[in-house]
C-alpha cells in the first residue's frame, strides 16, 4: 500500500512558501512558438461571435423558461426546465470565465455585463472570482498558490458527486457571500484580493443576498417554488455540465509543472457542447495563451497541436482516464497521469533561475 501523502492545498499553509522557494510562483511557463503577426491575428477582438452566441443563449433561456412556466404543474415542464437549467447553471460557467478574461467581446462593457449576469447565475462573486482566476492563470495547479484546484489529491469524490447538483460548491459560495456581506474576507482571499477591490466584494455580496432572499420571500408569498425555478435553483439543478466539462480541464494530471501541456487537457467536443462551453475544451491552448478569444481557439489549436500531447477524442476518452485516476488517487495521492509530448515537440521550458527540483 503506498504511503499516503496529503499536501496542504490552502494558500496560507507551508506549501505556499515551498512553491515560492522552488521557483514555481509567478514563474515563466512554456509557450509554443508563434510568430508575432500570427499571434496578433489570433488575439484580435471581435464583438460578432459573442453577440451571436449571447443572443442565442438568451433566446434559448427565454423560450425554455417560457415552456417551463407554461407547462408548470405537469411533467411536460421537466424537459423545458432541464434545458433552462443547463443554460443557466452550466453555460454560465463558460460565460463568466470568457467575459472575465475580457476576450469574449471586443467592447469592454459587453464583457462586463455578461460577466456580472453569468457570475450571479453560477453564484460566483465577480470580484472574488476575477482575482481568484487571475491567480489560477499565474500559478496553474501549483499547490499552495492556485485557489482553483478542483481535484486535489486525494480527491473529494463525494464533493465532486455533490457538485453534479452544485450542492457543495453552492453551500461554500453561500457561506462566503454571507461572510462578505458582513464586510470580511477569508484569509486565503485576502492574499489575492487587493484592498482597493474589497469594497466591491462586500457590496455585491449584499446585492446577491437581497436577490436570493427576495426570491425566497416571493416563493413563500405565493406558496410555490416557481420563481426559484427561474432564479436561484437552476444554479443547482442545471449544474451537471459544470462538473462534466470542468473536471476534464486538469483533474488527475500533474501538479507543480510549468508547462500547461502537462497539467491541462484539450478534449474534442461536438458543436453543441462547444457552444455550451464556449470552446473551453481547448484548455491547453486557453492556458498557454489566455488572451486568445474563445472563438479563435480552434485556430490556435490547429496551429500548436503538433507541439502538444494528443488531444482526447471526446468526453468518453477523457473520463476513461480521469475516473480511474481519481479513484486511484484516493489511496495513492502521489499518482498522476503523465501526459506524453510528441517526439518532435519542442522541449520543456527551462526551469526558472534558482528553482529547486521537486523532491
Amino acid at each position: 500500500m503506498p504511503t499516503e501523502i496529503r499536501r496542504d492545498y490552502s494558500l496560507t499553509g507551508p506549501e505556499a512558501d515551498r512553491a515560492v522557494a522552488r521557483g514555481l510562483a509567478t514563474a515563466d511557463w512554456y509557450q509554443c512558438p508563434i510568430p508575432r503577426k500570427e499571434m496578433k491575428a489570433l488575439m484580435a477582438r471581435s464583438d460578432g461571435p459573442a453577440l451571436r452566441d449571447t443572443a442565442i443563449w438568451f433566446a434559448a433561456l427565454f423560450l425554455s423558461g417560457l415552456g417551463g412556466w407554461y407547462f408548470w404543474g405537469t411533467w411536460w415542464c421537466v424537459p423545458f426546465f432541464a434545458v433552462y437549467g443547463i443554460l443557466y447553471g452550466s453555460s454560465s460557467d463558460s460565460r463568466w470565465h470568457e467575459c472575465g478574461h475580457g476576450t469574449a467581446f471586443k467592447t469592454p462593457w459587453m464583457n462586463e455585463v455578461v460577466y456580472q449576469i453569468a457570475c450571479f447565475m453560477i453564484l460566483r462573486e465577480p470580484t472574488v472570482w476575477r482575482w481568484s482566476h487571475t491567480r489560477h492563470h499565474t500559478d496553474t495547479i501549483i499547490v499552495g498558490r492556485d485557489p482553483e484546484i478542483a481535484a486535489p489529491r486525494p480527491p473529494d469524490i463525494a464533493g465532486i458527486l455533490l457538485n453534479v447538483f452544485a450542492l457543495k460548491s453552492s453551500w461554500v459560495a453561500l457561506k462566503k457571500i454571507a461572510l462578505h456581506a458582513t464586510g470580511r474576507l477569508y484569509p486565503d482571499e485576502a492574499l489575492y484580493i487587493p484592498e482597493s477591490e474589497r469594497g466591491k466584494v462586500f457590496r455585491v455580496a449584499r446585492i446577491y443576498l437581497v436577490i436570493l432572499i427576495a426570491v425566497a420571500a416571493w416563493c413563500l408569498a405565493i406558496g410555490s417554488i416557481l420563481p426559484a425555478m427561474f432564479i436561484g435553483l437552476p444554479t443547482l439543478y442545471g449544474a451537471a455540465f459544470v462538473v462534466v466539462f470542468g473536471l476534464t480541464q486538469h483533474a488527475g494530471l500533474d501538479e507543480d509543472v510549468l508547462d500547461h501541456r502537462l497539467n491541462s487537457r484539450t478534449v474534442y467536443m461536438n458543436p453543441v457542447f462547444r457552444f455550451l462551453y464556449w470552446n473551453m475544451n481547448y484548455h491547453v491552448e486557453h492556458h498557454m495563451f489566455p488572451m486568445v478569444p474563445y472563438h479563435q481557439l480552434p485556430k490556435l489549436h490547429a496551429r500548436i497541436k503538433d507541439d502538444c500531447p494528443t488531444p482526447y477524442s471526446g468526453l468518453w476518452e477523457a473520463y476513461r482516464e480521469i475516473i480511474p485516476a481519481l479513484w486511484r488517487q484516493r489511496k495513492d495521492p502521489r499518482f498522476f497521469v503523465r501526459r506524453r509530448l510528441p517526439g518532435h515537440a519542442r522541449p520543456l521550458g527551462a526551469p526558472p533561475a534558482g528553482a529547486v527540483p521537486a523532491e
Partner: protein
Amino acid sequence: MSATTAIRWVEACAVEDIDAEDVIRFDHEGRTFAIYRAPDGRFHATDGLCTHERVHLADGLVMGSIIECPKHNGRFDYTTGRAKGAPVCVDLATYPVRIDGDTVLIGLG
C-alpha cells in the same frame, strides 16, 4: 520623471521595426521597456513589465491607445501609463520618445 534629471537618449529600434498599432520589447542595461507605435504613427514608451505581475507587455495586444497584458487582461493607456482597471491597479512608468531619422530613441533618466 524629475525635471532636474538630464534625459539620456538611447537608441531603441528602427522606425520600421514596429508596425502601426503594435509594440516591441526593448532591453537595456538590465531593464526592459515596451516601445509602441500608435495607430496615428506616433511612438511611445513604457516600462516593459506589467505592474500586476512579471509579464512582458510586448507580448500583449495593442488596441488603439491601450496595451493589454497577455496574461491577465490588465490594460493600460500606454500614452499616459494609466492603469485602466483590475487586475492592474498601479500605473505604468512612461518615457519620452523622439525620432531621429529612421531611429526611435527613448529618453531615460
